[in-house]
């Protein structure tokens, strides 16, 4: 029985990969570092985007029913996340730490003054708001307007109660229906990702495509050493040579997917970030990572066949990946891009991959929900491989 040339090529490639710790580190450590840094650094930005309330401290010096009513009125607004605090000094420290945007101090006489008719003529403030240094002027104006509206409603209710009107519940319920909110582009706010949900798939996709750098360099080194020319004098065809290269890097891609998802689920929370929830169909993950690998390796093989030197390959693969990542929603999430850029992103295979992962992770999608992404990635990868094959074969 004859030895398999393909198996020999796979074993050879695995040995070469094992002897290149720097290349391996590039494939695993780099995306992991990006995932950790970006998930933690952009946690607050994504949390606000996803609808988390603006942090507000409330110092209630009186502790009466009216103060509690105001607290509940503000807490009912989902735009704010309220926290009670006993001392004003603690509030200043908390504001300086950057965890809160405002501190609202309700004085001890709030209970009586809120319902006084004389308040109309009073020059002294009913409540005091302290604004954190990093709070935007825009947010300050919005919060002040909301607080004034809450105080006015509370005073109005007190007055109406005195006049014998006992319930405004129907009015409150009706007012919530009077403003309809629609979004300029689909799905953006309806299911905005968290920092970890955005960054794990984004940098994972980037890492999968980044194999083009060591892959193409290994191919070019073989050509420069004359090994490829020697192989052409044997009857080891291009098929075995391609398979010998693709199979080990496909395995590396799959290991990258598993490790990066595990890092999102278990490592990021250890460092203070949110844990990645692995929603979505398991088969969807398997098919998506397979399609992504086909696309990434197709591109890598094409670069390897076209480039004549290691410098050319590194430049083409490196710059190409960065450009695809920039327009594909890896470095900057697609949902913050202007519409024209979002259209452009539709041409990046990385965007197809990120969209597929977001569909699974964010919306708990299944295989049918990502079928377009699967088709586009597989089609792109097979087309690139076919072109690489067509260019390589005449050299045989």
């Amino acid at each position, binding site marked *: *029985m*004859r*030895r*398999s*040339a393909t*198996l*020999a*090529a796979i*074993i*050879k490639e695995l*040995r*070469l990969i094992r*002897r*290149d710790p720097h290349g391996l580190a590039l494939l695993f450590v780099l995306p992991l570092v990006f995932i950790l840094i970006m998930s933690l650094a952009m946690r607050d930005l994504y949390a606000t985007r996803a609808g988390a309330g603006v942090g507000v401290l409330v110092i209630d010096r009186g502790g009466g029913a009216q103060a509690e009513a105001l607290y509940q009125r503000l807490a009912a607004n989902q735009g704010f996340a309220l926290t009670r605090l006993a001392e004003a000094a603690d509030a200043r420290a908390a504001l300086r730490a950057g965890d809160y945007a405002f501190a609202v101090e309700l004085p001890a006489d709030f209970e009586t003054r809120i319902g006084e008719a004389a308040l109309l003529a009073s020059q002294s403030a009913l409540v005091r708001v302290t604004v954190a240094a990093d709070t935007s002027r825009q947010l300050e104006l919005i919060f002040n307007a909301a607080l004034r509206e809450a105080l006015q409603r509370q005073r109005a209710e007190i007055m109406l109660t005195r006049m014998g009107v006992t319930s405004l519940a129907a009015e409150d319920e009706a007012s919530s229906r009077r403003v309809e909110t629609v979004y300029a582009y689909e799905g953006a706010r309806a299911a905005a990702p968290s920092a970890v949900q955005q960054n794990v798939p984004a940098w994972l996709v980037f890492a999968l495509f980044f194999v083009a750098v060591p892959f193409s360099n290994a191919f070019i080194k*073989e050509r420069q*050493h*004359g*090994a490829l*020319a*020697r*192989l*052409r*004098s*044997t*009857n*080891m065809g291009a098929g*075995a040579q391609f398979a010998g290269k693709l199979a080990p890097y496909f395995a590396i891609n799959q290991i990258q997917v598993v490790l990066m998802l595990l890092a999102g689920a278990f490592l990021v929370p250890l460092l203070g970030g949110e844990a990645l929830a692995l929603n979505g169909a398991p088969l969807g993950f398997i098919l998506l990572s397979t399609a992504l690998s086909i696309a990434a390796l197709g591109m890598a093989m094409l670069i390897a066949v076209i480039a004549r030197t290691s410098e050319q390959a590194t430049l083409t693969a490196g710059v190409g990946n960065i450009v695809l990542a920039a327009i594909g929603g890896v470095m900057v999430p697609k949902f913050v891009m202007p519409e024209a850029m979002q259209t452009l992103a539709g041409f990046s295979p990385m965007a197809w991959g990120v969209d597929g992962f977001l569909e699974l992770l964010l919306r708990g999608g299944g295989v049918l929900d990502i079928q377009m992404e699967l088709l586009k990635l597989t089609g792109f990868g097979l087309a690139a491989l076919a072109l690489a094959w067509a260019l390589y074969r005449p050299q*045989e």
Partner: protein
Amino acid sequence: MRSVTDISAPEPAFIRVAGVRHAYRGAPAPALDGVSFDIAQGACFGLLGPNGAGKSTLFALLTGVRKLQSGEISVGGISARADLPGLRAQGAIAPQDLAFYPDLTGRENLDFFAGAYRLDRAAWREAMARAVETCQLSEVLDRRAETYSGGLKRRLNLAIALLNEPRVLYLDEPTVGIDARSRRLIVDAIAALKAEGVTIIYTSHYMEEVEALCDGAAIIDRGRVVAQGSIREIVRAHGGGALELVFAAPAGDGLRAGLAPLGAVWRDEQTAAIAAADGETIARAVDAVTQSGAPLAHMNFGQARLEAAYLSVLGQSGDEA
């Protein structure tokens, strides 16, 4: 153009190259232009010529690396045009470039190429052991090839070519740039393979190696065979009366200009050879040296060696270009 000396191999041709022409896209002239020669089975055949003469292209066609454009090549009766895989299976090449993986050990390299040759599982260990023994690599087999000396690398390069026990071995400068011991070892290994009946095509710039190993040779220049036959015949036809001039300092333009009309070929900056020099040519050469004032270290005359024949053929070929 001078007529080609054509001395056919007396035995039936095992390798037949007939009217081969090969041109690269964009190149001003074909790399090979009507090359023809025959080689008998079990012969060692030298393929000689300056860099860029077309030897590598011819090797690429003989080993099935490149497809034939025109002409015919057959090895052991298998046509390159009709059965390229069959042609490839006949032979193996030890290229001038060290065609293996420096990051792998010697054993891993041999293991991989044994797979590439699709050797029989039962036979490949035996073939590997034979190749290792022939090239004396057993002590370094588990070291990475990048740590090998130049000589060891050449031996590994040869060992890989021996794995599929080829009927034809193509050796492209197998001893270039290595120490004397490794060179002797490789030359002895080639002689042993020849004795076993392996047909060998050999290129080298070391003419004494070609003279010692080869039965016949073809000299190629600018894509054409300008002389061929047995070594003895080539030497007899072209090697007599060569004059070699060795200078103590690099030759200046005046000296080169003075010797050019005599067909001088410069081997290096300080050594010139003039083919088939008679008394008058010697006198003119001495006169040119004297007029130029160049410091002549010594001169040799009358060495009937392959190197002189080679230089003579190339000198005349150059004159006609």
